[in-house]
């Protein structure tokens, strides 16, 4: 099957080449003038460090481990996210803790250690999908950089506080209830 190629018939004015050139120059001059009188914030380019794009909802940036109002971690150390992670960047160490009560949602298991290797993480959001407790969210922070590799290993307390400032929540660095030291479960 052949393809019919549409041939553009040039008028004699187009053939002179001068008139189309002038038309093209008028277009570029229009752009030039428009940009000359447009202030930098109104241009298409986002001047990154000073200006930032609005991050859309559903953006998958840096993770947050969610907590209850009392500061108890929502995560129950079920290892679902670790299993789901295609980049194998999540590693969890579970522990049991003694005092059960209603506010903690009948948890009896929680991560003793929960670390994400941000150097490996591809921000695919599979952990968020896999989580049965809605305990891990991928949110809007995308500026992940550090001067050394160790700083990119996010631990449990780092992940619980990633959005503390943005949400106006308190920084926490310990669980409200102590763990039972005898039993730790690792996969």
């Amino acid at each position: 099957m052949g393809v019919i190629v549409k041939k553009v018939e040039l008028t004699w004015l187009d053939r002179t080449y001068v008139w189309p050139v002038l038309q093209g120059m008028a277009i570029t001059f229009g752009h030039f003038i428009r940009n000359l009188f447009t202030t930098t914030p109104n241009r298409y380019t986002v001047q990154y460090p000073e200006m930032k794009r609005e991050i859309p909802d559903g953006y998958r940036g840096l993770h947050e481990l969610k907590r209850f109002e009392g500061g108890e971690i929502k995560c129950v150390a079920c290892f679902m996210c670790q299993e789901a992670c295609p980049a194998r960047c999540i590693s969890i160490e579970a522990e049991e803790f003694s005092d059960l009560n209603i506010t903690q949602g009948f948890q009896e298991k929680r991560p003793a250690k929960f670390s994400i290797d941000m150097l490996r993480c591809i921000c695919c959001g599979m952990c968020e999908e896999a989580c049965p407790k809605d305990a891990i969210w991928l949110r809007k922070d995308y500026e992940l950089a550090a001067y050394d590799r160790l700083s990119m290993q996010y631990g449990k307390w780092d992940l619980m506080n990633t959005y503390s400032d943005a949400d106006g929540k308190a920084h926490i660095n310990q669980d409200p209830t102590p763990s039972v030291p005898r039993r730790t479960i690792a996969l």
Partner: protein
Amino acid sequence: MDKLASLLHTSPATAWMVVKVIIVFSAVMLLASVWTWVERRGSAMIQDRIGPNRAALFGKIRIIGLAQLLADGIKFFFKEDLVPAEANKGLFWLAPFLAFVPALMGFAIIPFGRSLVSGGVTYHLSVLDPGNGMGMLYPLAIGGMAVYGVLVAAWSSNNKWSILGGMRASATMVSYEIGISLAVIAIFMSANGYDPSDVIKAQGHTPWTWFVVRQPLGFLVFFTCMFAETNRLPFDFAEGESEIVAGFNTEYGSMKFSLLALAEYSHLMTASALIATLYFGGWQVPFVKDPTVMLSVASFVLKLLFFAWVFVWVRWTLPRFRYDQLMHMGWKVMLPLSMANLVFHAWRMSQGH
């Protein structure tokens, strides 16, 4: 001027010459380097980008990216000055100067303001005084020299891409120079002389007596050929990333490269000065019969800057030609057009116009 002359222990004429040379060439070089910035910012505006605006003096004063010039200069200055092992070392060193010097030299003949009389002495505002016998033939001859800069740079690099670019550029320049010469001859006939001051005087102070109106075809040919002559888009066949890497300056780096780039922009300035002088009345101010010296200089500089901007403007508007299209245009379009222009004006003069 007499004071300066006595300070320098020379005659006033020599002192005036020295002052002229310093002012003219430093102004052209400064403009050329500023134009690298204009090119980048202008292209950004045309393409809805922003362009270099980050470079700042002392990390604070941004002045809309003008410090980029300084940053570029410093960067080029401190880069390693590599000379390829197989290159012809002497010519490799010489080529940037061969490109740069003719680009500046062409400017010497251009009167950038009307002559002023002070203390019974006439001071001419052009490096070469009028009536020197060379007239407008001089920039044309020097323009022919500009081929050597490109060609020597290309050949001495001992690089296939370079030599291809250099050959193409020199072929372009040589074939378009014929168009230029014929267009200019028509001007010489109408102006009744080939000295720039004659040409300017013949154009008068009214825009409709300028040669752009009297010889539009000649202007078209001359203007187009100037793009080929300065090796700029849409005729920049000395380089071309998709075809021959960076062309004639593939092997160049550091200050040598920067000198080649500056040569291109100086050439641009000289070309716009030529266009302004030949077709737009030089230093003539529209509708002002006897402009003051400052006004005439301002008028000339404005025209010069406008045409320099048109060079940038055209570069970011038009796509490049293919090489065979370029040759086709040079020989089969520009040459006959300029010949027709010449014959037409010769005929008109024979009819007593």
